[in-house]
């Protein structure tokens, strides 16, 4: 293994500025969508008093979950001492910060009163998992920034490992906190389950790594850097394990629910009768998000190609969005079980008359806000790798593989 050198992203200026312009335009459109929604109020969205969290939350939660997962690559190098991952750490830290920034931007801009963000920073109810998350998120920015500094500055090298371990522990807490937003909700049938927290952690592993792989391969390809097969094979195998773990948690979550009679109606809704939610569960969460990527990754021929790895990562990301949609929107669309043993036959406030699900169709401004968050993530990442030395000059096997000389 040779000494690793890092350098700024060297793509041509016109291409770099062109990309920033496109991303900037998407962000500007998202900005207009926010202005439109905040100026008019949420009546211009598809959100109602029944489905209170909509498309912005799907994007925000995906990005926040992926943020903590993106840091894993650095953690494996630092906390678990795997040398081959060390050159990947800087980009991992950067993506963690940018994904979280994008996710939080979307979340905050969908608040009924986004101007009161200062109140959220000064008034705390410490029994609220949301309030803990404010600390977990801001703490994450600070710790990861410190982590990146210590990675980049050789003088701080002796503190690099403890900060890396601390960042790893912190990211576990963060995703546990995000999962618990749903896990702690006793009111709704689809939530109120302790498995939500570890399931979100494992989802973050998969989504974060998939995003990392896509950004890494794009950035390297764009300015002609080399990634060796050894490293790619390791990363894609790791993705395979994470995706398999997501699938395992999915199976356990639904099997547990199916065992208890009280959850049968909810399970029938998600697995069989839920229309769009059933389609997104089987087609998106299970097939696109788990089974097809696993098939590609472990296929002897497909799994060895770069196209296969890109396809698998893309599918994991798309399946991830479907997963979050089923959890967030599907969980709200299912009527609350207020009167066990009885059917609501009439209601003045849409209580799920005759078991009918709550209606929700996302509006364009909501989707634009979410896409703006994604564009913000990419823009911040591209600026980061352009101005600072986040990318190794080469990840070719003779550089990155510690066992290269022996083989």
């Amino acid at each position, binding site marked *: 293994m040779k000494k690793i050198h890092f350098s700024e992203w060297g793509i041509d200026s016109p291409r770099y500025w062109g990309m920033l312009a496109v991303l900037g335009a998407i962000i500007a459109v998202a900005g207009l969508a926010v202005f439109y929604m905040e100026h008019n109020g949420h009546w211009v969205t598809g959100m109602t008093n029944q489905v209170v969290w909509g498309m912005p939350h799907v994007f925000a939660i995906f990005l926040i979950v992926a943020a903590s997962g993106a840091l894993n690559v650095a953690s494996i190098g630092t906390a678990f001492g795997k040398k081959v991952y060390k050159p990947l750490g800087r980009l991992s830290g950067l993506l963690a910060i940018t994904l979280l920034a994008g996710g939080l931007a979307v979340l905050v801009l969908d*608040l009924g009163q986004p101007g009161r963000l200062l*109140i959220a920073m000064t008034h705390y109810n410490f029994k609220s998992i949301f309030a803990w998350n404010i600390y977990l998120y801001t703490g994450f920015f600070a710790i990861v920034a410190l982590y990146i500094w210590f990675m980049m500055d050789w003088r701080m090298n002796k503190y690099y490992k403890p900060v890396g371990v601390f960042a790893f522990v912190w990211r576990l807490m963060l995703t546990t906190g995000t999962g618990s937003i749903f896990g702690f909700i006793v009111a709704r049938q689809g939530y109120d389950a302790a498995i939500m927290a570890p399931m979100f952690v494992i989802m973050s592993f998969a989504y974060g790594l998939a995003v990392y792989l896509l950004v890494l391969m794009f950035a390297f390809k764009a300015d002609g850097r080399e990634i060796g097969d050894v490293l790619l094979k390791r990363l894609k195998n790791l993705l395979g394990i994470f995706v398999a773990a997501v699938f395992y948690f999915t199976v356990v979550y639904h099997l547990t629910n199916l065992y208890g009679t009280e959850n049968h109606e909810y399970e029938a809704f998600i697995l069989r009768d839920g229309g769009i939610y059933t389609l997104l569960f089987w087609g998106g969460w299970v097939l696109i998000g788990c089974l097809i990527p696993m098939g590609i990754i472990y296929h002897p021929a497909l799994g060895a190609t770069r196209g296969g790895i890109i396809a698998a990562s893309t599918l994991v990301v798309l399946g991830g969005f479907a997963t979050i949609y089923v959890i967030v929107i599907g969980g709200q669309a299912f009527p609350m079980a207020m009167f066990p043993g009885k059917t609501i036959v009439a209601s003045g406030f849409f209580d799920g008359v005759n078991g009918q699900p709550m209606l929700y169709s996302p509006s364009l401004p909501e989707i634009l806000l979410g896409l703006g968050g994604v564009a913000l993530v990419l823009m911040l990442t591209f600026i980061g790798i352009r101005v600072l030395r986040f990318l190794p000059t080469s990840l070719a096997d003779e550089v990155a593989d510690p066992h290269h000389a022996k083989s």
Partner: protein
Amino acid sequence: MSKVEQQGRREFLKGTAATAAISIAPGVMLHSLTADAAPRTEAVTDKVRWGMLIDANKCADGCTDCVSACDKENGLDLVNMPEGADESLWERQRPRWIRQVSLKDNLSGKITHLPMMCQHCEKPPCVDVCPTGASFRRADGIVMVDRHICIGCRYCMMACPYKARSFIHAEVAEKLTHTPRGKGCVESCNLCVHRLDNGQTTTACQDACQHQAIVFGDLNDPESAVSQALKKYPSVQIRADLKLNTGVRYSNI
């Protein structure tokens, strides 16, 4: 010299009296004006716990008197559909504090009607999850929202087991002084808190119910009508499994 001095003393006394009159008079006025609302000068205590008992047998099919009364009392009827809004979508977005629900027993087919609103839990999930503390429970048992620090995150709406809360989806042009409301905040039934704080002892929904299905009062006072009724008739809490100790109880459902 002495004359001048005396004049000076007289002038001084006159001036003092005038100043005193100017500074005390508004206080006297204020005191006399607010004499009826004396409780407002003291903090609410837990000596009282407001609550109600709803008899579903008395609640009539198709009657929405309590809903209309609540809408009027709390200015919900002033919340107009924004121009250009889709009517069926707006119906799902407009705020409601109380609603009429009809239930059918799955086994017997018996139909029951009842009004649903905030159940004023002793341990409210909406208060637990609120990040800023905007969602709070008063010492006298009323669960409500401090609209100055509500950031509009809607986590309370996710957490409420009774779907009792509404988000204000649009600008509200006209509002009542005792029920301020603004776009982007969450709200729900507050047991007509403005009435109680002004010394009244009934809610608008109770007053409007011709069938006497709603008995409201102090749950801590064993002599109150609601306590007497609760003692006399069997009653249940909705989602009693959550052990939230609701302030609103139901009989005959």
